[in-house]
């Protein structure tokens, strides 16, 4: 067979399209993996969108009311009305409290000493004890805070009734998420996680699989530009991710009540960019390894863990040690999370996120550049 000395542009295009077609067949004929690639994001968005929240709700607490007077009853009523607590009343001794904590049945104990109301009226001072199971420090502090707030509220009520001078009122407005939905924080994060993970994992494994089975060699000895070969592997996953993106957005808006305050077009454009960044990362991983197992493990270490930890939707980045904060800057999902939040929740436009967009673009070019170089050296 005679290879033409000069490949015409249309021929190159035809070759490229035939590669892409082949890749589409590969992907769409593997039913099991396909199920996962489409099913996974759906399940995850629904599950995590509804379930993940850093609110503390439904906490079981015990109130030891040794006074049982009008004040304690008023406070207990307020506590019951708030959706944070499930209340049982029982007068427990310290050792009983410890036992209950050890059994894990309750998280907090509020103790009203005897003569609570009497002291409040006659000495203008009364004490309440709050004992928290601080195994989970977050829960402990938050619950203590909720309870303290409610008690402070009661105190304020008392004061108001007495018309005390020099009163400072505060008016509070919750912005972007007035209902304080816990899930609002998480959904853009889950989006970042799901889109990133699938693209990285699938691309890297699919390329490495080709390497392992030896068919990559065949492709590489052909006169076709090897880089086009590799790009053609990424394209089906790009479309797959776009479909996933659509599904995720639909679910988020209609099922999870997420707003899209800003421009949907902008969101889709930015998401596409992010998907390409993820695919480039997958490409890079594939150049680093020759076994599927290794590709998988590196993808796991390189995408799942950092994304979960350093994107900022589960753990607040500002709390991390400086070193980790710096590392978080090279995790692409972190930037996408900011972009998604800005567009969806804050309703901002491109002017607010051009910096983050530029960073993602830069990362993409860098990843592609390194991948191409590594790829070429492999052939040399």
């Amino acid at each position, binding site marked *: 067979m005679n290879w033409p000395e000069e490949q015409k542009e249309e021929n190159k295009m035809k070759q490229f399209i035939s590669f892409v077609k082949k890749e589409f067949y590969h992907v769409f004929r593997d039913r099991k993996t396909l199920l996962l690639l489409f099913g996974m994001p759906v399940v995850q968005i629904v599950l995590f969108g*509804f379930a993940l929240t850093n609110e503390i709700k439904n906490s079981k607490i015990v109130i030891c009311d040794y006074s049982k007077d009008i004040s304690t009853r008023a406070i207990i009523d307020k506590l019951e009305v708030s959706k944070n607590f499930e209340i049982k009343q029982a007068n427990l001794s310290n050792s009983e409290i410890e036992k209950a904590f050890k059994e*894990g049945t309750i998280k907090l104990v509020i103790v009203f000493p005897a003569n609570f109301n009497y002291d409040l009226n006659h000495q*203008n001072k009364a004490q309440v004890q709050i004992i928290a199971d601080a195994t989970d420090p977050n829960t402990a502090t938050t619950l203590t*805070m909720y309870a303290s707030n409610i008690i402070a509220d009661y105190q304020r009520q008392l004061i108001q009734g007495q018309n005390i001078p020099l009163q400072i009122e505060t008016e509070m*407005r919750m*912005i972007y998420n007035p209902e304080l939905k816990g899930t609002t924080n998480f959904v853009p994060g889950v989006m970042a996680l799901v889109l990133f993970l699938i693209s990285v*994992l699938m691309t890297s494994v699919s390329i490495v699989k080709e390497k392992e089975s030896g068919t990559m060699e065949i492709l590489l000895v052909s006169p076709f530009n090897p880089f086009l070969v590799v790009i053609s592997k990424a394209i089906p996953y790009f479309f797959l991710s776009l479909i996933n993106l659509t599904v995720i957005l639909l679910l988020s808006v209609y099922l999870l009540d997420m707003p899209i305050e800003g421009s949907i077009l902008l969101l889709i454009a930015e998401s596409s960019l992010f998907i390409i960044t993820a695919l480039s990362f997958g490409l890079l991983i594939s150049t680093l390894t020759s076994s599927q197992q290794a590709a998988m493990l590196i993808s796991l270490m390189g995408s799942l863990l950092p994304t979960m930890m350093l994107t900022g939707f589960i753990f607040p980045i500002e709390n991390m040690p400086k070193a980790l904060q710096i590392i978080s800057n090279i995790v692409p999902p972190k930037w996408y999370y900011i972009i998604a939040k800005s567009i969806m929740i804050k309703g901002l436009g491109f002017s607010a996120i051009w910096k983050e967009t530029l960073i993602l673009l830069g990362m993409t070019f860098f990843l592609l550049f390194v991948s191409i170089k590594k790829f070429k050296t492999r052939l040399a």
Partner: protein
Amino acid sequence: MRTLRFLLQKEFKQIFRDPTILRLIIMLPVIQLLIIPLAADYEIKNINITIVDNDRSTFSQNLASKILASGYFRLTDYNNSFAAGIKQMESDKTDLILEIPRNFEKNLVNTNTEKLFIAVNAINGTKALVGSAYVSRIIAQFNQNIRTELLPPSKIQNIPTIEIVSANWFNRFLNYQVFMVPGILVLLITVVGAFMCALNIVKEKESGTIEQINVTPIRKHHFILGKLIPFWIIGMFVFSIGLFLIARLVYGIVPAGSILLIYSFLSVYLLAIMGIGLIISNYSNTQQQAMSLAFFFLMVFILMGGLFTSIESMPEWAQWIAKLNPLAWFIDVMRMVVMKGSGFSDIKNHFLIMAGFTVFFNSWAIINYKKTS
């Protein structure tokens, strides 16, 4: 029995000759245990605040310094433009805006009441609640101080105050790392036990050596045991390194409860999740499939395991799903035994359920695994 011995010899040799696996066994504990607890600090601190002071009086400046002295807040900006504050909130530079109106001090003294305005970035609901609660508390204290200064003592004494005394048991210093590390240990051995075990079997499927096993007198249960036991041992080993080496030396964590109890539960847990690994390998013909499945389950297990978010806060139906998550149960046990010193009677239920999981998953796996098509 002899057959099993030969099988185990082969499996161990193969595992330790695989550089990827060896690297993992060493790297995974290190990375997960060292880095995740560092990252996982939920404490609400370093709240960024912008103070828009239109008054610039003694009062307002006093209030500002009180807020900053509390230690909860970091000052993003001290200005007199609410619009500027909102812009800062848009770019995530500030979490809270406190606006002090013009003539705040004058109005308060003359009319006996004045209003402060607080805008809170509520995307992170908990942070918003906590931040606003801190600010409110400081303002209330500030308010009380003003009264003490300006009002005659008789008037002040009539103001009722409820003093809250709070105590934190089992973790006096509210150390997040002590809380996270036991949970991460569980995550660690789940990956080693289920994940790697599944891949190992599928690798054999892919390379065809499984056919060879199918033709031999090796029975179903031998083969499965031959796959489970090595990873069970490795899981125990990795756990021990994590608990005794890293947790103790780096974080100073010493279990308050019985170590025997922990290891007993660990043994059962490993068996249960290996069952899951087996099931994954049964349903996958290629490593790519096994990986996708494993990834999926891993993510669900991690995020629904109570490791990062609390299970009790989930909606009812989600809590039921969490109940089906073996990870959640073990994480709970670890936290209870390590931090509180809970005993066997406290985790009786957990044991029962884990045993149930073990029987269920492994039966499913075994029934599923067919040597003959």
